[in-house]
Structures are given as C-alpha cells and as structure tokens.
C-alpha cells in the first residue's frame, strides 16, 4: 500500500539501524513525544534494532493519558445526567476517573456515544434538540482545530444544545517543562509529526536555543522514526543543535495556517493540568469568552469538580521519561489493560499499554 509499505520496509529499517549504530559513538537518550510514535516503536520492536548506547524514553504525548482526572470525573458527572448525551473519542471510555469510568456509566444507563470526529457530535445535537449534547474535546494541537471548528459551526448555527468539555494540551510547553526539570535525562527530541502538520515547527527554534537540544520532527512509521533517530544522533555526535524535519511529506515550517487561525479564533491559551505531571503554565487551550455558551465547564457549573492525583504515581515519571513502564512494581501484575491503575495503561498509545501489549515480559527466543 502506497505511503505505508515503503515506510515499513524491513530492509530499509535494518539499513538505518546499522547506520545509527555506526554513527553513535557515545551514549544518547532520546525521547519521542507522541504516544502514536511510542506505539510504533513497541509494535515494531524498533528499540531492539537500535544499538544499546541509543536509548529511547517515552514522552507525555498520549492525549488520553495526560487528560486530568477531574476532566474524567466531570465527563462522568455529565454522562449521569438524564438530559445529557456525552460524545467522546473511543479510548477515553476506559480511562478510570476517581470512582468509575465512562464504560460503566454507559452500562448503568448513561447515554455515552463514541465518535470519530466532533462533526458527529454536531449531528447528534441537531438530531436530538431536546437533549444536551456534550463533546469531550481532548487532545493536542492535532485534534484541537477540528474541535475548534465544531464550536465555530455550532455558534454559526446557533445550536443551543451543543457544548464541549475542553481539555486541550500543547506540546512545546511540555517539552520546556521536561527540559527544565533537574532530573531531565533527555538529550534530543523527536517532535510529533501530526502536531507539526498543524502548527509547523517554527515554535521549536526557541527551545533548541534555550535548552541546547536538537529536535527532529518525525513521522509515525518505523522508517520515519529510525530516520529521525539517525538525524538526532548525527546532530548530537557532530555537536549540532538544530530543528530538522524528517516528516517532509506532511510537515512544513509554517504549518497549516487555516487550522492555526481557527484555533486562535475559538480558543485561548490557559494554564493546564496534565495527569501525572501537574499544572504547566500556558500549556492548554480553553474556549474564548465569545464561546462561553458552548463551554460545558461554565454552563453546567463543572468548575467546582476537582480531583487530586495520588502523590506517588510512577505514571508521572513514565510520562516524563524518567522511568520505563517495566520499572513499576504493579506493571502487568496489578495493573493491566483490563484493570488499569493509571491512564498510561488505558489508551493504546499509553507507554504502559504499549509495553504490555507488545513486550510484556522477556520473550524467549
């Protein structure tokens, strides 16, 4: 299949791995930001192909994983209301809140529906004028433009029974937070290709300069990731610190200006809580005042619902690349996808779930 097979080619992948081994003279710790990239790394066993002195640690870019506990609790509170239809992306339904998850709320009669796009939530709202339809709008800069568009469209149509529970997060502030930590181990980043398809990579120049780390925008297929790793290792070995773009078939420097515009029109930047990490200043998006009528937080008075994460959760360290999922005592014993103790075990993109599904324990040869 075009655009897939050539990026999953075993021969090309192995050649790249050999080249990485030849270039890497010293020990380097690299982080892929995005959960989709983590998923590919584990699914294809890319870390097995790498030399032992090039280590991958996994970043906070799983939108399901970093959605704060209180957002899940708010969604559950909404779904329990008889007048509400809660519409969500599928993999949010299994994320444990403080006392329940959306699958169980659904089993208890809550009207929870899975959608592939916020456009479907709009359709549901139009078809059910007597019900209040709330879309759980989460994700990075990738999903944000479509969600912004849904709010824009709802306002244009004056669709009074539609609103969004927004918990959007932004990548560059998260990278800065990781790099500012005294515990940081990461020496180079693979930036998420889909986020950069929207935002471009103009935002990364300052990070490279301020923190002296190379950043390569990478795609999601095995060959993309190995190429990005090679580009990072080359820079590190040569003492370069630049932003490079591996994912040229999708990403431009400027990004998608129409998508950026709708983001600006509908959302404003806000301080944001990240599950497992805490609050990062100016790292999230919320609906602008003009869209207050579509903000579920405001119209349902949900701002009162708060929840605190347990203080000693290793998922915080996993999401910052300080620990691997297998370092957790509960991993695959008390914490499994059937009974997830923390969010990174829930989504297919969560680092813990990726390890569990593809690399649970040493596979005997």
């Amino acid at each position: 299949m075009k655009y897939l097979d050539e990026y999953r080619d075993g021969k090309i992948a192995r050649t790249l791995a050999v080249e990485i081994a030849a270039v890497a003279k010293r020990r380097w710790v690299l982080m892929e930001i995005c959960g989709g990239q983590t998923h590919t790394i584990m699914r294809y066993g890319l870390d097995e192909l790498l030399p032992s002195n090039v280590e991958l640690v996994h970043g906070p870019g799983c939108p399901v994983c970093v959605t704060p506990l209180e957002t899940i609790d708010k969604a559950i509170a909404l779904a329990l209301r008889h007048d509400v239809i809660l519409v969500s992306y599928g993999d949010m339904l299994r994320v444990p809140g403080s006392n329940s998850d959306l699958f169980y709320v659904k089993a208890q009669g809550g009207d929870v529906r899975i959608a592939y796009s916020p456009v479907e939530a709009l359709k549901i709202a139009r078809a059910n004028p007597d019900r209040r339809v709330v879309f759980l709008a989460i994700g990075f800069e990738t999903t944000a433009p479509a969600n912004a568009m849904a709010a824009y469209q709802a306002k244009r149509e004056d669709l009074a029974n539609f609103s969004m529970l927004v918990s959007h997060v932004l990548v560059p502030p998260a990278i800065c937070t990781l790099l500012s930590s005294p515990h940081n181990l990461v020496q180079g980043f693979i930036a998420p290709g889909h986020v950069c398809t929207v935002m471009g990579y103009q935002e990364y120049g300052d990070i490279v300069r301020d923190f002296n780390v190379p950043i390569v925008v990478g795609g999601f297929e095995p060959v993309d990731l190995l190429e990005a790793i090679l580009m990072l290792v080359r820079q590190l070995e040569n003492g370069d610190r630049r932003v490079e773009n591996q994912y040229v078939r999708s990403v431009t420097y400027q990004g998608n200006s129409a998508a950026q515009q709708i983001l600006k029109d509908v959302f404003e930047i806000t301080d944001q809580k990240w599950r497992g990490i805490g609050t990062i200043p100016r790292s999230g998006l919320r609906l602008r005042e003009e869209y207050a009528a579509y903000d579920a937080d405001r119209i349902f008075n949900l701002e009162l619902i708060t929840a605190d994460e347990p203080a000693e959760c290793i998922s915080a360290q996993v999401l910052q690349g300080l620990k691997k999922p297998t370092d957790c005592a509960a991993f695959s014993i008390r914490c499994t996808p059937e009974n997830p103790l923390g969010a990174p075990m829930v989504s297919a993109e969560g680092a813990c779930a990726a390890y569990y599904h593809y690399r649970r324990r040493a596979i005997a040869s």
Partner: protein
Amino acid sequence: MAALTCPTPSTRRETIVLGHGSGGKLSAELVRDIFLPAFGNAVLSKLNDQAIVNVNDSRIAVTTDSFVVKPLFFPGGNIGSLAVHGTVNDLAVGGAQPLFLSAGFIIEEGLSIEILRKVVASMQEAARSAGVQIVTGDTKVVEKGKGDGVFINTTGIGLVPNGLQLSAELAQPGDKVLLSGPIGDHGIAILGQREGLEFESAIASDSAPLHTLVAQILSVTAGIRCMRDPTRGGLSSALNEIAAQSHVGIELDEVCIPVRDEVKGACEMLGLDPLYVANEGKLVAVVDPSAAQAALAAMRSHSQGSEAQIVGTVLSSNPGMVTMRTQLGTIRIVDMLAGDQLPRIC
C-alpha cells in the same frame, strides 16, 4: 525511596459492560468465573467452538450462537445468512457434518414484516446451500426499544466421523498454522456500514459456510490438530485460545498474513489492528508439520481457500502466548484484547 505506586484502582467490575461480549479477555473471564463453575463438565471444559458428545455409537456435535449484529443488512450478507453460517462453521471446525439447525427469533416491536421476510429468505437460502435443515424454532417479541430490530439464536447439530479428533488442546510444538484467506473483511464491512464510512471500493463481509472447505482438507490428511473460525476477537483471539488450551506458544509471521489493501487502509484510518477484526468465513487450522503442505494445497484448491497461507508455527516456548515476527524481523506479543478495540484519538 517511597514505594512505586499507581493511582488506586477505582473501577468496580461487578457490572456487565459491552466489552464482556467482545470475545476478548472480559468474555473469557465470564466463562471462567461465572459459567464454568456452574456448568462445568468434561465436554464443556474443552472450550471448543462446539461440544462433541457420544450418543450410542454416534458422535454428535452441538453448538449455539446468538446474533445481534447492527446493521441487520451489510455488504456481503445480513443477520439471517450470518446466523446460519456462524453456527454451521462452529460445527464444521470440529470436523462435523452440519445437519440441523434451530432458529430462535427475538423481534423488536415495530420491525417491518418485509425486513423479517428478507432475513428469513436469506436464512433459507444459506441453509439450503450449506445443506442443513432448520427443523425447529421459536419467536418472541419485545417492546420497542428493547432490541435492535431482531436478534437471532441458532443451535446446530452435526455428526462427527468416528476416529476424528480435533480439539484446541491438541496443538504441538512444530505444528504449522494455516489461514484460509485475508482477514478482517467482515468486521470492516460492518463498521463501514454502521458508521456510514464510505470506502473507495466496497468491502464486503466474508460471511460463508466453511464445511466444504473443511471436508476438503480432512479428505487429504489426518494431520489436522484443530480448527477455528476466527470470528469476534479476530485471528488473535482464536490463536490465543489455542495457545492457552494446548499450553504452547504460537509465533506468527507478519509478512505471511493476508490482509486486503482496502481493509488495511480502513484499519489504518480507524486505528484498528486487523488481527483483532472479526471474520465470518475464514478458517485457521493447526496442522502437523508433515501434513502442512498437503493441507495448504487442499485449501488453495477450494474456492474459499485460494489465498490460503501458512502464517505461523507452534512453539514450546512462551506457553499460552501468541507472538509475531514483524516485517522488520523483530518479535512482538499478539495479546488478547481486554474488550473491544477502541478507536484511537489520533
């Protein structure tokens, strides 16, 4: 240093959720924790797709299946043809000649008689072409809103030739795993129809009776250990069950597993793995290595097995686990899913 902990488990597991019907780990838990302790006996505990019981000198295969598919009509079939094929196939993979079916209908108030007529006509046609008779039935009607149009249960009875032993606990290290054709067609056809997704080329369900394909394979070799039709939960669940029952490992070879480009494309778009997507007309067989080529040739000479492949090998290592050599040459686990595959956010 403080003990490593994750947030306390919070979700109660005392309620049925949709995932309990997905054919994955949650379904297996229900069988293990609720049904087996109550009903357990030597026949049931084999956990095959069909039970084989001895009555006088006859070996009778019995199986039952309920069909709750939505939408009722989809490219390549409908709930009626599916209800016949599903049960015929559960008999066939035990080596049984399917003979008789029952048909139980749970109909939702408000269903048009015309739709019921179409469903029944297609059951009749499917039964005729599968060589089975529908010899008993039942009808119940539930209130509007208490069902999706119509649910159908079929029970099937067949005869197993004397001496033939096919069972999920019989796989042995060294055996080969054969697959009769491309996976994922049924699940993607249903999903496409349900979600109103428009694919460039239509993806039709593979719903079909497998008994003649099975008969063809059994006629050329006695080296078949067990067979499955990998329905809900997909190829992965079927093989995980065999690996668990036989206490063996199974290693798949990714490059050998046939998946149509259309299905692959739809799965990429939807964030699904074809290994977990349902099939309704595919056969997996675990075969003695010395019989593998003959069985493969027999599969390929049948119209339903023309794209058959040897897709894996049974190992003594990693008992109970399915692994896969990826197209990059690395090894990964092919796990059984907890519940349904969930569409990913991005």
